[in-house]
């Protein structure tokens, strides 16, 4: 068994920042929360920032002249600056607030897609994608006749890069839209290299960063990503807000998504003109308090240091893979620890994943079970459902031990001893 990394993070202090962690979910069963890939918990710094906003500064943004509206606007736009710095966007105008990763991808499909893609054009996805990066393109395929191609997943849980190169070579691909980190396999895809190849082939690249932005430093300029989508609720931030990053030239040339207040420049009964970026894509009253919360989450993660977060998580995940692989009858999915991040997904003999999750819950251990919004990947894996333990900066090796113990208990209930 490996020794814990010497992490500069004080995990006990970090855990104390997350009020939800200190509870028993059943009598005598303290919460062991291993479901952060679905949605992370929030530190009090984030919860407090939103409370403070509502108690001191709230008003509608942008059009108000009074003090509260000035403060609300500064808070909302200040959050945009923080996100810009966090992902190293060139301009704050490239940061568009949306509801979640799903909306970010839908915006690109519906606006860039409809404006730039014609029947027969190819959009390249992968077999490991989340439904949120499949269905928007399927809708577009139906509406526009775009053809979807899929980068295969190898038996080792990696993208087949030879097939990727061939797909880029064989057909005129207009856009590649692929996840940075898999929410099921944990696979860290070599996104920088893939972007380079896509650009060389004349294709744009959308990075689904839902599972990477919370865990590793993502630099859109270094990656040269054309679009990046992510959700605040998976990165210690609130529900109800996410980000679409896009290169300015691309966003400028795209038609708007929704119509309404704030996104217009002028409106007459005969027609309208659009506001500048990012407002062109932010119709109606935005999620102001949630932007404030996201800004606070960015501050929180930045203060911890993304490298430190990653190092700590890697340690816990490695330990989890090690311990889980000892459990008789347990099958682990995905690549080895070096090529993965954040999650450990498994099945136990022919037990249904829901039964596993239910029995773990009885021991206070929260994992997710099901298809994790990746039905096609599960079809490929040959199982309808898997159980997934996922980790964030507040998780510990001791919690991995609790997980493993609970799994042994589940085996017993089902007579697998």
């Amino acid at each position, binding site marked *: 068994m490996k020794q814990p990394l010497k992490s500069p993070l004080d995990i006990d202090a970090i855990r104390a920042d997350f009020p939800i962690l200190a509870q028993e979910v059943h009598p005598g069963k303290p919460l062991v929360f291993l479901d952060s890939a679905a949605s992370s918990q929030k530190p009090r710094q984030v919860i407090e920032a939103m409370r403070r906003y509502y108690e001191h500064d709230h008003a509608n943004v942008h059009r108000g002249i009074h003090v509260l509206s000035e403060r609300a606007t500064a808070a909302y736009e200040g959050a945009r600056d923080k996100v810009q710095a966090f992902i190293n966007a060139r301009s704050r105008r490239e940061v568009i607030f949306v509801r979640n990763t799903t909306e970010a991808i839908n915006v690109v499909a519906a606006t860039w897609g409809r404006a730039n893609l014609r029947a027969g054009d190819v959009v390249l996805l992968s077999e490991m994608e989340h439904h949120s990066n499949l269905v928007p393109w399927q809708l577009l395929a139906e509406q526009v006749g775009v053809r979807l191609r899929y980068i295969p997943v190898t038996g080792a849980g990696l993208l087949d890069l030879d097939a990727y190169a061939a797909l880029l070579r064989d057909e005129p691909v207009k856009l590649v839209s692929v996840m940075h980190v898999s929410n099921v396999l944990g696979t860290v895809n070599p996104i920088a290299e893939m972007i380079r190849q896509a650009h060389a082939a004349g294709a744009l690249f959308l990075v689904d960063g839902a599972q990477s932005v919370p865990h590793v430093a993502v630099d859109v300029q270094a990656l040269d990503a054309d679009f990046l989508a992510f959700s605040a609720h998976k990165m210690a931030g609130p529900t109800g807000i996410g980000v679409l990053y896009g290169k300015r030239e691309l966003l400028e040339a795209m038609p708007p998504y929704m119509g309404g207040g704030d996104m217009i420049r002028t409106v007459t009964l005969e027609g309208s003109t659009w506001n500048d970026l990012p407002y062109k894509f932010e119709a109606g009253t935005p999620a102001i308090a949630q932007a404030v919360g996201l800004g606070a989450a960015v501050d929180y993660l930045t203060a911890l240091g993304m490298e430190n977060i990653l190092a700590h998580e890697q340690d816990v995940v490695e330990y989890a893979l090690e311990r889980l692989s000892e459990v008789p009858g347990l099958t682990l999915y995905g690549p080895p620890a070096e090529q993965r991040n954040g999650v450990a997904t498994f099945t136990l003999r022919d037990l*249904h994943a*829901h*039964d596993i999750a*239910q029995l773990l819950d*009885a021991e206070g251990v929260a994992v997710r*079970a099901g298809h994790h919004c990746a039905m096609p990947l599960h079809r490929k894996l040959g199982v*309808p*459902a898997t159980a997934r333990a996922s980790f964030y900066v507040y998780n510990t090796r001791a919690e991995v031990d609790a997980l493993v113990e609970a799994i042994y208990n589940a085996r017993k209930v*089902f*007579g697998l001893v």
Partner: protein
Amino acid sequence: MDMYMENIIDHGQNPRNFGEPLQPADIDYEDENPFCGDHLHLTARLDEQGRVAEVRWEGHGCTISQASASMLGEAMLGKTLEELRHFSRQDVLDMLGIQLSPTRLKCALLALKVLKAGAYGLTDWTGEEDEHA
């Protein structure tokens, strides 16, 4: 853990009337629980008195959904169509004999939902209205 009582695990592991769908069948319907992916295909044949003579179902899902299908399938035998239509969510819960949270209730009720749809037309069954997804 109460949810996994012996009889539930038994029905889950040794489902009764499990197998290839009947063809032809008087009742034939399949559906899934969209949130978890559990799937159920239920078929049944009536005898000349209009009573269920044979039940056959297949599907995949958690122990709760499989055990419910197994138990409900057994309970269907000998019943008239009219009697099938009167099966209630409480009947299913009574067969299982356990308490369920709203999410797991969906698992337990998938079999009933498929039965109602097959025997009645789903839209007439409003039992789903009062639970949460």
